[in-house]
């Protein structure tokens, strides 16, 4: 009997419409739709698409939790053996939706989940730990290449075959360590690598240690008196009660908070969500982490033009590099759109 697959696509690939239809509500059809046809062909009868979920990208992005729950409910009765989402190529919101649904399905049903994305799709960094994501070209022109690779990987997973390295199978590295027997003793591999390093030859370490790249400094602020300065912190400062439920560590989101008219942070108004340090002092007076009071003084005195009326907060503690990068990129885009000149980033 063929394996049962549920396929997830967005409104565009379902032929419903483009951006104007992006708030299309999630629905499920007992049919093969859009790129599902190519998938079906690639399965050669070994697996069948029993249902297709269609959801608008904007709808999913703005109702992530609700839509996820709703779609999980729709999928359940079809008892899938695997879940395939996309491919999303370089479409950011579509990729994020595919990744989020893969992660949710894997957690809920414990079945293989497969997607396909361009490596720079933000969905990759966010969800590669939770899903098998086939590396695709950046546009739908790569459909012919992406779909057979996704189908092949899905069948391999469904049959319980051992997967090779990312480069061999075509998926994006998930960051999960797996044991294997090599042809040589670890000692010999180590001496081999040692000799290569001595000789200045290229070699591939078996365990890459974290490395850091650099960004060139931006030019200095010329006119501080008219500059808009924004505050960003990784110290977890948020309105008292942590309304957005930012996690104490390994944060999956950042907070954006309005401080229009706020001249001082107090124990009545603000606290820290950060679980990585003793919160006593920040909870007593959050200005100790995010110096709003002083910046308001400087604004009043005309030293700076303006303190930006929103601050941004994340929790540095245990937050993955990928998430931290994503937060940084999203925050700076909003700051640029709001006409901010420069940023003070505070960390604990």
């Amino acid at each position, binding site marked *: 009997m063929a394996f049962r697959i549920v396929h997830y696509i967005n409104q565009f690939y379902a032929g419903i419409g483009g951006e104007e239809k992006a708030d299309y509500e999630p629905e499920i059809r007992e049919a093969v739709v859009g790129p599902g046809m190519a998938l079906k062909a690639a399965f050669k009868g070994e697996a069948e698409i029993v249902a297709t979920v269609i959801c608008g990208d904007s709808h999913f992005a703005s109702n992530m939790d609700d839509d996820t729950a709703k779609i999980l409910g729709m999928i359940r009765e079809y008892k899938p053996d695997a879940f395939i989402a996309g491919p999303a190529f370089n479409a950011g919101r579509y990729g994020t939706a595919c990744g989020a649904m893969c992660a949710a399905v894997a957690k809920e049903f414990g079945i293989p989940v497969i997607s396909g994305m361009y490596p720079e799709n933000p969905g990759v960094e966010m969800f590669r730990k939770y899903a098998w994501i086939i590396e695709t070209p950046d546009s739908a022109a790569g459909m012919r290449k992406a779909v057979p690779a996704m189908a092949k990987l899905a069948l391999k997973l469904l049959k319980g075959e051992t997967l090779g390295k990312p480069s061999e199978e075509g998926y994006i590295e998930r960051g999960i360590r797996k044991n294997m027997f090599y042809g040589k003793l670890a000692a010999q591999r180590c001496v081999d690598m040692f000799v290569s390093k001595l000789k200045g030859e290229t070699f591939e370490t078996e365990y890459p240690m974290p490395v850091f790249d*650099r960004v060139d400094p*931006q030019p200095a602020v010329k006119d501080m008196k008219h500059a808009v300065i924004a505050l960003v912190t990784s110290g977890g400062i948020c309105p008292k009660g942590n309304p957005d439920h930012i996690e104490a560590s390994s944060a999956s989101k950042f907070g954006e908070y309005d401080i229009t008219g706020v001249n001082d942070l107090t124990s009545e108004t603000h606290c820290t969500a950060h679980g990585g340090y003793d919160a006593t002092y*920040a909870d007593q007076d959050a200005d100790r982490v995010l110096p709003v009071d002083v910046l308001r003084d400087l604004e009043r005195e005309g*030293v700076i033009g303006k303190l930006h009326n929103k601050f941004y907060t994340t929790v540095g503690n245990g937050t993955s590099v990928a998430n931290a990068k994503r937060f940084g990129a999203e925050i700076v885009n909003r700051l640029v759109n709001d006409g901010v*000149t420069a940023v003070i980033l505070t960390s*604990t």
Partner: protein
Amino acid sequence: MVKEIERKLPVVHMCTIVPISQTVGANRIVPTIAIPHPFGDPSKTPEEEKALRRSLVERGLKALQTEITEQTVFTE
């Protein structure tokens, strides 16, 4: 995170553990007081504490107004 911001806007990283800031790739760095209270010192009076905080923030603004070509730690 600091690097992503620096790609588009000048940013000063104000933090207690300078080597970590250096490792994550900040360019303008201002050392602060202590991990649980970078801009404060609970052993001081509120007035002294705020004066201390102000001097740190002013140092941060100075860093933002200084042209640099490489990672720089502003200690005064």
